[in-house]
């Protein structure tokens, strides 16, 4: 009559892992609407292709390694969408395919599937694509034009504002263009207002931590204010640094991936702060424009170290508070 698989708490919180994954998907889908509005239907094909490829690859790997497929496990869908978001709209399909395959086959499957990967698969896939086809990854198109399915010469290829930032210049973009993302950029990562709204939604759903994104953006703001290009007031250089490119998107989606961030609050703040510093270091020294992805990969390797540091620190703080003030 009663199966033995039930254990101690016989009532469970209504929210399940499915809802955690669907939160992330819900937070990503509105960016597709905006990019469809700007670039036409090609963007949706790229997004669907990368998402479904990642999902199929993940299920195939699960079947190969563990002989069972968990059809409700949508974390690969999130990876696929994030990869397609940071690609330019005129990207060829084989570059997206290579990034997705690298993300799932090399970064996720060998480590043990959904909850066990050390590195963020989307970040690794994008880093791989940037390293292999760096020229293709930074060709952008002026928005508000319907792109044909196959890219031919009729489409004018432009350089994004991050290229001018890299050369030390300053893209003369008004605040509205920055917030609406109305400048040549990647598929989904330039619409600052929508990303900010999705961030609020994620924080409300406890899928993202506000102090993590904040501690990532503070060093970025400080450093870009300190060495701003000559003749530009610091505020504008901060806005350009953060919003004229995919840095804000990375800070909201790639940083708040629950699997690869540390688990303690102090560790998360340290992780965010050092990821911000590393991003600025990479931004000034790396030949690519999209350098935040490499910094996130490096910090993913160090996040277990932050956790162990916190575990070592916690008992010391507890004893300090017991001796110091009254504890609770």
């Amino acid at each position: 009559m009663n199966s033995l698989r039930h254990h101690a708490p016989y009532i469970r919180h209504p929210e399940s892992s499915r809802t955690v994954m669907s939160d992330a998907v819900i937070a990503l889908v509105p960016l597709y609407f905006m990019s469809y509005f700007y670039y036409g239907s090609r963007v949706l094909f790229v997004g669907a292709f990368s998402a479904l490829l990642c999902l199929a690859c993940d299920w195939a790997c699960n079947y190969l390694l563990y002989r069972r497929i968990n059809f409700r496990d949508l974390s690969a869908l999130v990876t696929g969408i994030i990869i397609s978001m940071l690609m330019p709209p005129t990207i060829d399909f084989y570059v997206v395919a290579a990034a997705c395959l690298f993300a799932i086959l090399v970064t996720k499957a060998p480590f043990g599937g959904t909850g066990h990967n050390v590195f963020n698969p989307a970040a690794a896939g994008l880093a791989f694509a940037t390293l292999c086809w760096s020229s293709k990854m930074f060709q952008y198109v002026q928005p508000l034009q319907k792109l044909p399915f196959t890219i031919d010469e009729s489409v004018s290829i432009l350089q994004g504002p991050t290229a001018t930032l890299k050369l030390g210049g300053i893209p003369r973009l008004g605040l509205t263009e920055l917030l609406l993302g109305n400048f040549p950029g990647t598929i989904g990562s330039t619409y600052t207002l929508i990303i900010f709204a999705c961030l609020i939604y994620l924080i409300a759903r406890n899928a993202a931590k506000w102090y993590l994104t904040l501690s990532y953006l503070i060093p970025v703001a400080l450093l870009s204010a300190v060495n701003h290009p000559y003749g530009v007031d610091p505020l504008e250089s901060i806005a350009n640094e953060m919003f004229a490119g995919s840095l804000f998107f990375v800070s909201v989606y790639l940083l708040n991936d629950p699997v690869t961030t540390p688990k303690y609050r102090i560790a998360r703040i340290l992780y965010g702060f050092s990821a911000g510093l590393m991003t600025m270091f990479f931004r000034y020294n790396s030949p690519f424009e999209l350098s935040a992805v490499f910094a996130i990969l490096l910090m993913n390797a160090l996040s277990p170290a932050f956790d162990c540091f916190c575990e070592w620190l916690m008992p010391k703080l507890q004893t300090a508070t017991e001796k110091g003030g009254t504890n609770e």
Partner: protein
Amino acid sequence: MIFLTELFAAFLSAMMVENLLFARAIDIPGLYEKRTPGQIFTIGAVLMVINCISSIPAYLASGIFRSHAAFVPFMTLSFLLINGIVFILCYFAMQRLMPERFASIQKSLPFYGVNCVTLGTLLIAARMSNSSHFSSFFGYCLGAGVGFTCAMLVLWSIRQKLALTHTPKTFRGLPITFIYLGIVSLALFGLLGNQLPS
């Protein structure tokens, strides 16, 4: 002042840009053993001490080799001899000065003294283009030691997380180590772009 900027530039390039383990795949024997952070720091200290001390004679030797091209095949031999002698000096100095620390790592100290990292740094520093003056030579040797310690700390940190996960049986152990070494070197190649390190 220029002395410091060049030293720091070489230090930074050796530590981050062309990290010995991730960008150049240079390792010490027994890189994959299970170690605590304390042991990692002692190994890093040994490497750094031997690197810095041997960088002074090595700089003089590289001056000679740069002028006479005929001796180039003997360059590795001379650097190896410098490295060996400095290691033996350090070995006996440590035996006398810090006997208890020496007793703990006596078995493995020789392997951390003369290996690819120490000889490799000297050779790479000698081949570097702007190693004409001593600051960038010494900065490179210092940066290589510090960079290798940071690389081992990164490996330790990933190992901490992987110890608690269920990696599939075919990837457990060395295969997964190679894969995450590859991914961290992918992250560090962001600084290098797609030109191969010399």
